[in-house]
């Protein structure tokens, strides 16, 4: 067993070096920067932020937290309701609903926000339809400002609740429900006393994800905030205005708020950020409710799902609209294939697609290595004892918002360091894949760890007593058993990265400009049709990734 022990130390050391070099070091450099002031080092920037009277930074912090809490509550209601209907009621278009419900998470934030604008904004389809129908001015019903930001968050993040809650509901023990019903409990009593307690971990896990994603959200405030302040926007504008130390201080503030929330929920609940996998097929129609209630619930989920599908439909419509044909009109007045032909005719048009795919795959390879090694060490290896602590430590980067991560990397690697191979990384191709790895490896680690947890140690011991070495056990037992977790994590990683915008926009160079930045450039040039056509490309790419993931799984399990 000596070899085994050494074998587990080497990954541990490598993992710690990785963590020290690419997580702790950049965050440390950023902390130092935030303390820099005109007369050496001081806490003056923090004092400025907290004093509040001289700047809007405190207001921004309050707004960010407020919007995030609202997003969690409303996202939970929407996602939870959908999950409930899909798993507990039997109705004809159930499959379609559960497919459509996960779409928003695959849509890159920037695309989602713009599609949203076209549907719900002041000159969007719905407010204008309402104006045409009822005469209520569209500006009265349109979403703008804080309500619009919350709505975008709910639109994008209710998927977390949907996924987590529906998985948990499927695992709800049907016999408990039956027993309770047999003892004469009413449906609402069953819901309150049997079903909801089982959902606590799922609700907490989804709340963590939603809260952190809302705190870190950039695209929605960028387009809808108007005169309101948000921390991510303050960071962006402070940096643009040339005050890097203050931007660093604000970044740390944002990270700390996210972290406090994250760690508290983690330690209090022990909730895991995982997509729980179900055994067997989902149980539908567990709960027997009154037909009227049932009809209302089904109608509600149909409405919600239509609203979720609308932005997608609009993107496709815009991609066929002639430039300039959609200003005061309800719908575009002229249609054309030009947006696609122009894109296809433009030189180097596929370079951003290639760049994003290449960087996504490079990141995925590293993420697989780091995620699997980390998950093994935490669940089965050396770090098993301090499990919860190490979980929090290794998933910390997930609580660092994309903007902050990018600024930390810029500060850390704009001069040569051992971790960057004694080169300057800023302005090179490699800084983006690095940022991508840091943004996504916690997801992979979580989903792998969840899969590993369900792996019985007895199987490994049995294999070991039959003489299988660590590599053999890893290859022949662990990998096949956790493959679904790996594929799920991999698909999530790739679709996140293909549309990544927040870090990319600060770090890209000409040689590495990714899809989201190209979409932004098309938008800057006011080529809405082309931007939409590009979004359609991206969605096709994402579908390909999801399809590949399913194909791998199908091939493995005949």
């Amino acid at each position, binding site marked *: 067993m000596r070899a085994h022990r050494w074998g587990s130390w080497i990954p541990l050391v490598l993992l710690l070096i990785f963590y020290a070099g690419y997580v702790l070091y950049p965050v440390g450099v950023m902390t130092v920067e935030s303390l820099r002031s005109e007369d050496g080092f001081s806490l003056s920037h923090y004092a400025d932020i907290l004093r509040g009277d*001289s*700047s*809007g930074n405190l207001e921004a912090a309050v707004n960010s937290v407020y919007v995030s809490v609202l997003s969690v509550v409303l996202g939970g209601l929407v996602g939870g309701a959908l999950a409930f209907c899909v798993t507990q009621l039997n109705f004809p278009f159930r499959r379609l609903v559960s497919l459509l419900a996960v779409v928003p998470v695959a849509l890159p934030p920037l695309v989602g926000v713009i599609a949203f604008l076209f549907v719900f904004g*002041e*000159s969007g389809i719905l407010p204008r339809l309402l104006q045409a129908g009822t005469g209520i001015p569209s*500006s*009265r019903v349109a979403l*703008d*400002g804080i309500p619009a930001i919350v709505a975008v968050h709910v639109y994008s993040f209710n998927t977390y609740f949907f996924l987590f809650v529906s998985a948990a509901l499927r695992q709800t023990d049907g016999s408990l429900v039956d027993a309770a019903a047999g003892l004469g409990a009413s449906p609402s009593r069953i819901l309150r006393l049997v079903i909801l307690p089982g959902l606590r971990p799922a609700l907490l896990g989804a709340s963590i994800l939603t809260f952190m994603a809302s705190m870190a959200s950039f695209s929605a405030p*960028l*387009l809808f*905030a*108007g*005169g*309101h*302040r948000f921390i991510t926007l303050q960071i962006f*504008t402070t*940096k*643009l*205005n*040339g*005050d890097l130390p203050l931007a660093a201080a604000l970044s740390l503030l944002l990270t700390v708020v996210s972290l406090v929330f994250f760690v508290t929920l983690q330690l209090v609940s022990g909730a895991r950020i995982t997509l729980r996998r179900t055994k067997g097929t989902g149980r539908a129609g567990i709960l027997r409710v009154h037909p009227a209630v049932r009809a209302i619930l089904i109608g509600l989920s149909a409405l919600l799902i239509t609203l979720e599908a609308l932005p997608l439909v609009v993107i496709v419509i815009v991609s066929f609209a002639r*430039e*300039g044909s*959609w*200003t*005061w009109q309800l719908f575009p007045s002229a249609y054309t294939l030009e947006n696609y032909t122009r894109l296809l005719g433009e030189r180097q048009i596929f370079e951003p697609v*290639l760049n994003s*795919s*290449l960087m996504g*795959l*490079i990141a*995925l*390879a590293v993420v*697989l290595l780091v995620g699997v090694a980390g998950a093994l060490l935490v669940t089965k290896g050396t770090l098993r004892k301090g499990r919860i602590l190490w979980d929090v430590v290794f998933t910390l980067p997930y609580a660092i918002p994309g903007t902050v991560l990018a600024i930390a990397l*810029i500060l850390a690697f*704009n*001069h040569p360091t051992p971790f960057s191979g004694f080169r*300057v990384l*800023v*302005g*090179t191709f490699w800084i983006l894949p690095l940022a991508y790895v840091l943004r996504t490896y916690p997801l992979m680690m979580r989903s792998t760890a969840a899969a590993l947890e369900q792996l019985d140690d007895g199987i490994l011991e049995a294999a070991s007593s039959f003489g299988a070495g660590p590599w053999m056990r890893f290859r022949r037992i662990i*990998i096949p058993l956790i*493959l679904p977790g*790996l594929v799920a994590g991999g698909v999530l990683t790739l679709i996140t990265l293909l549309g990544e915008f927040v870090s990319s926009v600060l770090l890209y*160079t*000409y040689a590495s*400009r990714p899809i989201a930045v190209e979409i932004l*450039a098309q*938008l*800057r*040039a*006011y*080529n*809405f049709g082309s931007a939409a056509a590009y979004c359609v490309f991206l969605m096709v790419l994402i579908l390909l990734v999801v399809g590949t993931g399913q194909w*791998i799984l199908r091939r*493995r399990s005949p």
Partner: protein
Amino acid sequence: MRRMIMLALSAALAAGCSRPPAKTPLILYSPHGKEMLAEFEQQFEASHPDVDVQWLDMGSQDVYDRLRTERDNPQADLWWGGPMTSFERAASEGLLERYIPSWDASVPQGEKSKDGFWYGTFLTPEVIMYNNRMVTGDDAPKDWDDLLAPQWRGRILIRYPLASGTMRIIFCAMIERANAATGDSLAGFRWLQRLDANTKTYVADPTQLYLRIAREEAPLSVWNMPDVEMQANKSYQPFSYVVPASGTPVITEGIAIVKGSLHAAQAKAFYEFVTSKQSMIQEANDFYRIPTRTDLPGSSLPAWMTARKWKAMNVDWRRLQANERSWMQYWDDHVKGSGISNTGAR
């Protein structure tokens, strides 16, 4: 699984490596827009087949921020476009390389850097822009102060100024103007606060501005003349503009070679190419850019350009540049939204 990943990876790597080989890249940061950049990229590459012009289209404040971020590892060779105040600041921070172009003599003093770090290429007057389906030319505001009239309450959209070179200059010029008129150092901010009260909302980028005005969410904005001309004439947007009667800030837009440029020879060639007489004339006629060069034959330029019907506001550019950052920070902290939040977003 492993085989799949290896396969996918090697395919991706092969795709990544099989790009066309060995042309010298020339990297250009510019806010001048896709149409104009693509046009001159093609022209230049036709006459310099060994050079691959690669441009990134971004706001001028973004360009400046990027150059500063990349100071230790410069990526760009050339910076084309943006207000002279940004170029002056970049020059004073050592981000630019000296270069005296062949046409040095044909640009007046004040429209170029004293030490040759940057040269003015275009003059950009700022204007009041309006949607001509919503407001007639007669009703549109005629001067800056008209924007504060009560009938425009909640009917002005403004590009969020911190990220925009154009908007920073307009706002700072308004501060300067009000301060000079009253001798009160806060008068300018009070003027902007009244503008803020009439502002429906601040939008993130030029696209949002064009989109929302074209879609009739509000009829008014302040923006620069060439971009409004471009949108009206090339994208068929319902935009018109008024040049403020009392005078408008006219921004000198610059061009400069980036310090530490890896392809300085190519950068110089491109610099000369896009500022040649012939190119300047094309930029004037096709892209509504008003040239700084005084040696272009008047007959080769559009009539509206030679007529120069705008009155330049007398701006103390030095003082403006010295105060720009702190003024904008103060505006962001104290003025932004102070009017909006009092009146509600709409």
